[in-house]
């Protein structure tokens, strides 16, 4: 995608010119020099957003530490933890051997005693080697100990497909972790989401699974001044309505929010006004916002990249049928990844995941309109 590549180049340039110690002030001045016309808005990549969030939380609370493969000297496998080793030292930015089960468990054990680890998985596919600890010793502990031992840990890393990385590196874990009581599962989209939700996750006293997306790391989004404040926090469990509409509700999370917004623009030309909901949080799922939106628009399309069976869309569909059945004017459409392990070939991979056209077609089906002549598969 050309757009992404261009944005990645911008990000790379701005990264190299930053000094992380006073990056915020510098960015502001640089941004205001570069854009004379918009004094208030600045742009920030998701990568910088995550990095600044980690930086600020580590500065504010000495019990926060980062642990994972390549987080220190390599500056992060995806450069999310860049600069943190120099600033905070190896005791707080811990490079680990390749032992997911081991270091996830070590994180949980240290969280039992009140430290606040941020455990990075190079991708969430590797979290399967540590899933026993995420679920059995982190998620269930507050319940099993009847409130005596809470686990203020954050497991973060890229989730879902990237580009051409093959079947074992492309699975989306939102549905798996979203079904476990005792976990909070967050899925940021924009830089503001990334900052606010990561800060909330680190401050939260419960285990949080923070699912990022590799292809979003380089994308820039405008951030408000409030979002740049070091005490900025987004609430866990509340979805955001990215675009208001009245004909159809489209729910999405992570990268699919971008696709849904583009689909909404295409649908606008056809006279279909789409409301796009950025879920932000898979567990707890913001059923109230989703249902309120469906009651307004009467039609629903859910979009996700994960496997279709037992996916996020399935849960949203069930929730809407349970709570707002009478308001539905058409059956719910679920758009998900194809029910196959991810293929490698570029054209097959493209077919295996939802594209903007798929969202547009599903929206039209739900509105009982035939495809317009201009759109093609």
């Amino acid at each position: 995608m050309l757009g992404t590549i261009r944005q990645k180049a911008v990000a790379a340039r701005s990264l190299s010119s930053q000094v992380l110690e006073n990056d915020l002030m510098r960015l502001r001045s640089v941004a205001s020099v570069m854009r004379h016309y918009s004094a208030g808005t600045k742009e920030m990549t998701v990568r910088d957003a995550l990095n600044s969030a980690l930086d600020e939380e580590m500065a504010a609370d000495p019990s926060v530490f980062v642990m994972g493969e390549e987080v220190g000297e390599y500056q992060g496998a995806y450069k999310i933890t860049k600069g943190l080793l120099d600033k905070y030292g190896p005791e707080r930015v811990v490079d680990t051997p390749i032992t997911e089960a081991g270091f996830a468990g070590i994180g949980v054990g240290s969280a039992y005693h009140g430290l606040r680890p941020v455990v990075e998985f190079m991708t969430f596919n590797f979290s399967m080697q540590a899933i026993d600890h995420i679920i059995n010793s982190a998620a269930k502990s507050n319940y099993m100990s009847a409130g005596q031992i809470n686990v203020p840990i954050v497991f973060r890393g890229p989730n879902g497909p990237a580009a051409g990385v093959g079947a074992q590196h492309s699975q989306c874990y939102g549905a798996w972790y979203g079904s476990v009581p005792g976990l909070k599962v967050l899925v940021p989209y924009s830089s503001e989401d990334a900052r606010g939700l990561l800060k909330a996750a680190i401050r939260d006293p419960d285990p949080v699974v923070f699912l990022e997306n590799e292809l979003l790391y380089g994308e820039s989004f405008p951030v408000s001044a409030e979002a740049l404040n070091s005490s900025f926090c987004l609430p866990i469990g509340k979805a955001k309505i990215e675009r208001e509409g009245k004909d159809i509700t489209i729910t999405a999370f992570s990268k699919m929010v971008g696709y849904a917004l583009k689909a909404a623009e295409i649908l606008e030309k056809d006279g279909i006004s789409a409301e796009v909901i950025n879920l932000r949080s898979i567990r707890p799922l913001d059923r109230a916002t989703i249902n309120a939106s469906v009651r307004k628009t009467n039609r629903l399309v859910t979009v996700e990249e994960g496997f279709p069976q037992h996916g996020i869309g399935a849960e949203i569909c069930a929730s809407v049928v349970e709570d707002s059945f009478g308001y539905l004017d058409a059956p719910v459409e679920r758009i998900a990844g194809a029910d196959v392990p991810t293929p490698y070939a570029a054209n097959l991979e493209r077919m295996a995941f939802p594209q903007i056209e798929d969202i547009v077609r599903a929206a039209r089906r739900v509105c009982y309109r035939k495809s317009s002549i201009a759109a093609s598969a």
Partner: protein
Amino acid sequence: MAFVGAKIKIIQPLNLNVHASTHPHSFTSNNNCKFTSLSSPFLGSTRTHTLTLTRSISPRRSAASSSTVVAVSDVVKEKKAKSTSNLLLTKEEGLEVYEDMYLGRAFEDMCAQMYYRGKMFGFVHLYNGQEAVSSGFIKLLKKEDSVVSTYRDHVHALSKGVPARAVMSELFGKKTGCCRGQGGSMHMFSAEHNVLGGFAFIGEGIPVATGAAFTSKYKREVLKEADCDHVTLAFFGDGTANNGQFFECLNMAALWKLPIIFVVENNLWAIGMSHLRATSDPEIWKKGPAFGMPGVHVDGMDVLKVREVAKEAIGRARRGEGPTLVECETYRFRGHSLADPDELRDPAEKAHYAARDPITQLKKYLIESKLVSEADLKAIEKKIDEVVEDAVEFADESPAPSRSQLLENVFADPRGFGIGPDGKYRCEDPKFTEGTAQV
């Protein structure tokens, strides 16, 4: 203290009066586990260790130096000659350890009775026969030290100080249990006594214990609590010693010199799988030196020997010298759990270990060395029997958890806005903003 003896099966601990720090072969010397030096012979020592039960070795030190110690340095011999007393523990310590072991035994026997009467249910794994390991190690800990265990955790919790009433109520599934009935037999947690579980998956507790040890080091180095020398004990069995997480943590604990002791309770059986059928090299203590930490083998049916080894390992960890792997050869008198028919174990093997019951051995030692009288021990036994009876009564009379308890404690902070500085949920603060910034 050195783990001397290149050719013996059981390590004979040396005199109690020798303090580890002044001993020439203490762990403080050179010990970053450079195996070139032979002064610490237990590291990679070529002992012919077999698991045959034919060799019977005197389980306790007698007054004279034990004849089974083969290699003893001159300095050590000298120290032994100088010491006036050869008793391994004082009267108070002896009574404390005896009481703890007897409590473990009486409690577990009562659990079996209650299970067969239907008061206890689910999976119950009893610790009979292994009391020497629990009492030998845990009675040397402070309250702030942590213990992490497996599903065979009742006695570890009791030794660490969780009241018998709380454990029994938890087993009955009552509200007054240590986890309010929500954990059960396999998930004993106590924040107050630093019992960090109670895990059903074998090997799961080892990384958690390593994390607790990591916290100790972190508190000292980063949070600057200079006197934080808390030690963590991880208890697990012979089956676990083949699990990947065990090796991952041996590596990281030695790499970062964490204050942890890995205690293998090798009772030779993992349900029905014999250790010898499951393990390529059955000598588990050898896996320690492979990762750069001392590996020690000790007779786990003898609480005094276990105590000596424990003292040294705990001292090492407290001084910041890193982890130790201790293999305790022990035996469980009952089956894997109360549902296990226990048909695969040879009755001769069971008889052999039953004859070496740790409680009987300690009793014999205490009386023969004239530390205590029969009457003292009888008084303790009577007291413990009463404690256990009282625990059962208390558990019986306690109420079951209320219905509202089902949905409680899933999260520490259910709405996820965080807990503010005044300890209340932030979302309940009227001045809290939701932070839904619109761009």
